[in-house]
């Protein structure tokens, strides 16, 4: 397939030097462009990434959300849990339900949510209120006075098998939901240069914690050993080399998918495939800003980044193709999607996303859709006809099918 071979060439070129991806993207367009007769409506010309052009918005004033300041979004099949500055919300079958303190929620600020695949329990991180288990319509509160939770200021929650991992401002706690036993990880028993845990993600036998001032910590469930990923230059004010490791030791979020690690910082984004690191910053990529509040890996080659200047999507790792959604001006009616290769913008597309502010705090993938939470409102990008990577020419698809 022409596109595949071109992509492979691009991949090897990418290894050679920065900037090659620009040429690769052009090659992709030239190679497949002539063969394509039509492209997916959402995708535009052949060889381009998918662009979310249609969005739905949700506000507290419409009666669904308990509050417009969104801190966390977690998909659970067709259900969507949303954590706000004043309550927990559930979106299911196009209907909202919400819980505030008067409904039994132990504390108003919901900063993290994770759902146990095994039990269906919803684990709710509370910013200053500890951890809550929402099960059977009842909230049970775990805090630093009644449990092994190391601190009540919770930033992140993840569930792996029977264990709930909680990132707090004073270390990491792990609750074995079968035995009820807690384990606490701080500088005393883990390689934490600092103990300020900001986020946690888990999967495939690994737990990753983003530690503010401590890089990314990796816990291997089977061997029960820690491994620390840090900024190799060990300096706060510089990044010595782009791809030598983590961009910065102050990490804000981590996402582990398809054995690839995505690490967000306030200084850019890092990707690690277990062998190679790759760094992205606003001057060399489609990131509209280095200030990344959260990252969500969609696959090994695509990540969605909640920045203070919109949603930055690395759509295709091999060609370094990005889609950055943001308001172009303060008074713009809607957001614009900017398609770029590296930091070279190829074109811009209008969307109907009308959230009034593009400081994105949370992002989640649900099927083909993407959800983003901001300081004032929630939005869903409707992924009709979504595809990963770059669009494929119909001629080539047909040829391949025929073969």
């Amino acid at each position: 397939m022409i596109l595949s071979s071109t992509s492979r060439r691009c991949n090897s070129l990418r290894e050679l030097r920065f900037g090659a991806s620009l040429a690769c993207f052009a090659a992709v367009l030239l190679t497949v462009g002539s063969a394509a007769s039509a492209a997916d409506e959402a995708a535009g010309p052949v060889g381009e990434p998918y662009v979310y052009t249609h969005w739905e918005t949700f506000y507290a004033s419409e009666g669904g959300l308990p509050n417009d300041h969104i801190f966390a979004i977690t998909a659970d099949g067709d259900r969507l849990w949303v954590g706000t500055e004043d309550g927990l919300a559930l979106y299911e079958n196009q209907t909202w339900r919400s819980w505030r303190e008067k409904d039994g929620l132990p504390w108003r600020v919901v900063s993290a949510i994770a759902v146990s695949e095994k039990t269906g329990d919803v684990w709710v991180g509370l910013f200053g209120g500890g951890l809550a288990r929402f099960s059977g319509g009842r909230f049970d509160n775990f805090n630093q006075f009644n449990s092994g939770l190391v601190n009540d200021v919770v930033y992140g929650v993840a569930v792996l098998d029977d264990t709930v991992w909680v990132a707090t401002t004073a270390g990491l706690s792990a609750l074995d939901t079968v035995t009820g036993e807690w384990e606490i990880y701080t500088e005393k028993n883990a390689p934490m240069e600092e103990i300020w845990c900001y986020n946690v993600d888990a999967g495939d036998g690994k737990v990753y914690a983003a530690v503010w001032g401590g890089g990314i910590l990796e816990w291997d469930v089977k061997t029960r050993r820690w491994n620390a990923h840090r900024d190799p230059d060990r300096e706060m004010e510089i990044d010595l080399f782009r791809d030598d490791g983590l961009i910065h030791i102050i990490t804000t979020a981590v996402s582990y998918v398809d054995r690839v690690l995505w690490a967000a910082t306030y200084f850019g984004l890092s990707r690690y495939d277990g062998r190679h690191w790759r760094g992205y910053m606003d001057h060399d990529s489609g990131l509209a800003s280095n200030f990344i509040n959260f990252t969500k890996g969609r696959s090994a080659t695509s990540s969605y980044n909640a920045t203070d200047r919109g949603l930055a999507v690395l759509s295709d790792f091999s060609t370094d193709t990005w889609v950055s959604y943001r308001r172009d001006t303060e008074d713009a009616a809607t957001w614009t999607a900017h398609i770029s290769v590296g930091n070279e913008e190829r074109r811009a597309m209008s969307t109907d996303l009308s959230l009034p502010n593009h400081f994105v705090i949370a992002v989640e993938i649900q099927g083909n859709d993407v959800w983003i939470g901001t300081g004032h409102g929630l939005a869903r990008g409707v992924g009709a006809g979504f595809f990963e990577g770059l669009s494929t020419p119909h001629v080539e698809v047909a040829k391949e099918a025929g073969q």
Partner: protein
Amino acid sequence: MKAMTLLMSVVAVTFPFFATGGDTQDPTPVPGAKKQVYGDTPEELMPYGKFTEPYKRFFLEPNEYRGYGRHIPEPEHVDSVKIGFLGPIEATVSVATGGASHEEQMGRKMLQGARLAIEHANARGGYRGSKTPYELVVRNDNGLWGASGNEIVDLAYKEHVWAILGTIDGANSHIAIRVALKAEVPMMNTGDTDPTFIETAIPWVCRNITDDRQMSYLLADYVFGTLGLTRVAALRANNRYGRMSIDEFRDAATRLGHPFLAELNYQLGDTDFTPQLERIKTLEPEAVITWGDSEESALILAQMRAMGMEQLFIGSDRMVTPEFLEATGDGAFNVVAGYPYDPESGDPKQVAFVEQFTARFGEPPETYAAHAYDGMTQLIEAIERAGLNRALIRDELMAVTSWHGVTGEKVYDAICSNRSPALLAVVEDGAWTFRSLGDR
């Protein structure tokens, strides 16, 4: 005293450091042609400066806040305009010591300074002259690591403060600003000199005290440049303050080709330092540097002198106290420290502040009180200009590039960190004297 006289008679050399050789390797391409310098770092002290240009330099542009907060309407009525205070004011158990906490003295002074600024603002008519008073909401951060996080959550969501002043301990400060970032509350720091505190890209934070980076550069210039010494050994506190704050001096020593002969540490609460000092003595250093609280620094110096070690003794600003001089007595010679401002400048604002503070509290102010007074005054001025909106208060705070207070002229860099030059504090005739860059 003889050694001190000799030391001080050395002719001062001009800043910056003496020239050093460089690597000829081609630098990594850097976006943007104009070279800027973060932290007023001298060329010779640039990280990897002899190796290559870094791919990216941070902290050269302002930390922007791009959130929704500016659109939140001002409340129609408030009984008072609340400002939070976070500091170590109550004695508790300390993780650092495994015993008694150790920063209450500084915290209480900080509280006095903040309180006086509130009182002065209220005497001027309160919030925008409306007679609505400013109210200080005080919280203790001196608990175990993490306590400050709970307190900031409490201040932000229960007390609904408009801004927060605090704190001193580096760990607590870092925890506090991460919470302030999420809760979107502006913070003014007046007591944490840890350089990394401000190196976090958080757009809600300002610091008005000259940090250990600046003090270390000055000390390094003095020790290795002016005095031409090369052999330095370190004995520092084994807590976050000692670990993080000596960093810049250690790096400077290494980059100038004079790495520490040794870096030993002690536990907070230790009183006998002879085991460490005996090891250091055998290395024959020309100077010993410590980074810790006044009490331990005084004990180290006293024990050094008792062992016949008359080397230059270098310390941090926490050492610059009357108690240090009392405890060290005749041993207080050949002593120098960095200091964040000139407490004897004679500036009319400073003179008036000392009078008013002393009249109010029955004791004179010191550095934590003076910086808290300035920091709180800056916060109040920002509130007066912005109104009752946290994001707009933040904007006003960040817009200040220079400000004249009781601690002198404050010059803020792109990320709202005070870059006013540090001073050398030198013991002379049994008293601390303060020298600026030019007249040391």
